[in-house]
């Protein structure tokens, strides 16, 4: 946590580099950050509400999907980007020392900025569909923070491992795809076969996405026991991720 104070400016600068550099040579520039998930959602909404019908929802499918898709995309993008953050900054790794987790944190921060921008569309959706919200919507903040904790822990581990074996990034591409289908992003939990539903309990991403839907669309409280388990898991993830990262840190410059 110290790095947020001591390396605040470095973090800000690296995050800015990440954001600014990405869409420099494109006409629409940063608008892609909003357009991309929007079109992704349109295509998926068409497929899953018109072809493979997801039924029995209390809200329009597009809205249902988007509430799950945005945090999932944030998770997947953060993981992929931070996994490459050490490899991609190899020339800096061998040149100057500062805590290496700065790279991972700035990769995640850049994705959070993307996520917040993409969320504008969600707000428009809420207005468009006249979706009512209750005071419980403020639960979004702690759920989001726990999700970031989980993401950070996993990112630290994967970023370090990927420096030693680049297989990690390819392998994890596959894992992310599987993971998404085992998380109720495009379908509601109720459609998942009951005997396998315990998977969701062990899958923090499933807990987060169900919780977002519960507080934003259902208007109720999140399932606190599930969220508690997810919080515990996330803390374990961060502590062990940080530990592994710091143990390997001394070797980064030698293997990159």
């Amino acid at each position, binding site marked *: 946590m110290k790095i947020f104070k001591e390396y605040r400016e470095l973090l800000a*600068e690296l995050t*800015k580099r990440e954001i*600014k550099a990405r869409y420099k040579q494109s006409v629409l520039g940063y608008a892609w950050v909003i357009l991309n998930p929007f079109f992704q959602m349109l295509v998926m909404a068409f497929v899953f509400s018109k072809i493979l019908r997801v039924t029995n929802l209390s809200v329009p499918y597009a809205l249902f999907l988007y509430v799950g898709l945005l945090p999932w995309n944030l998770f997947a993008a953060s993981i992929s980007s931070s996994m490459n953050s050490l490899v991609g900054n190899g*020339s*800096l*790794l061998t040149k*100057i020392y500062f805590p290496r987790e700065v790279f991972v944190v700035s990769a995640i921060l850049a994705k959070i900025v993307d996520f917040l921008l993409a969320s504008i569309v969600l707000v428009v959706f809420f207005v468009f569909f006249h979706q009512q919200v209750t005071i419980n919507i403020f639960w979004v903040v702690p759920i989001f923070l726990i999700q970031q904790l989980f993401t950070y822990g996993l990112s630290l581990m994967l970023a370090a491992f990927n420096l030693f074996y680049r297989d990690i990034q390819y392998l994890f591409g596959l894992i992310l795809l599987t993971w998404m289908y085992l998380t109720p992003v495009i379908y509601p939990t109720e459609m998942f076969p009951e005997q396998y539903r315990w998977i969701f309990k062990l899958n923090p991403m499933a807990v987060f996405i169900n919780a977002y839907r519960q507080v934003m669309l259902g208007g109720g409280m999140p399932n606190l026991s599930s969220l508690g388990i997810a919080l515990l898991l996330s803390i374990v993830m961060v502590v062990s991720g940080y530990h592994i990262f710091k143990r390997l840190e001394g070797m980064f410059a*030698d293997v990159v």
Partner: protein
Amino acid sequence: MSSNPAISINHVSKLFHKQNQRTFKELIPALFGGKKVVESFWALKDIDLEIKKGETIGIIGPNGSGKSTLLKLIAGVSQPTKGEIKTNGRIAPLIELGAGFHPELTGRENVFLNGIILGMTRAEVSEKFKKIVDFAEIWDFIDQPVKHYSSGMYLRLAFAVAIHTEPEILLIDEILAVGDAAFQAKCFKKMDEFKQKKVTIIYVSHAIESVKSFCDKVLYIDHSQMMGFGESEEVINKYIEGMGVIK
């Protein structure tokens, strides 16, 4: 003067584990096939010396002798296997200049980015911005993406940023060999200024003449070992003799 050394290198050795298998596809058969997965070699063996504040030290030795490894250890990016290194003061590595530059960003953006990477605050960079760009002589292009820069311009800008961090220890690795004559002259002038200001300078080079004229002391490394450390003249002669034997 203070007795506090700028850099103290205390019986430092560095073991490298060279792993030949970089992917699982290579690693897994190797593990089962009983092949040696990790090969080790000592990149540095028992380096022991002390560098005082304000000294200018040249490091010479043939390629692959461990010079750059030593610089990495001093910069703190790599950890010694045995022994320890203590440094005292802000380090500016002039190694692989422009490593933190992003080609898509403009010169101005890169100056801020790199300045902060090298340990300045945003306010410090703002304050020195004019000086940096003046030194690099790059005003006409400062708002262009650096990917459109010539390699000389790129280098000048990176160099300018690095030397304006007000370093107390300057690590220089061969960089002065690149760039045109005018730029080289300018760099050496700047180096002399640093010398006068009692900045500790570590200068790795193959250019014996410039080491001889520029450095107070010279460290000669060969095959990971310290072959000599002391007065420039003496150590350089030893080096030339050593090279002669190999030829």
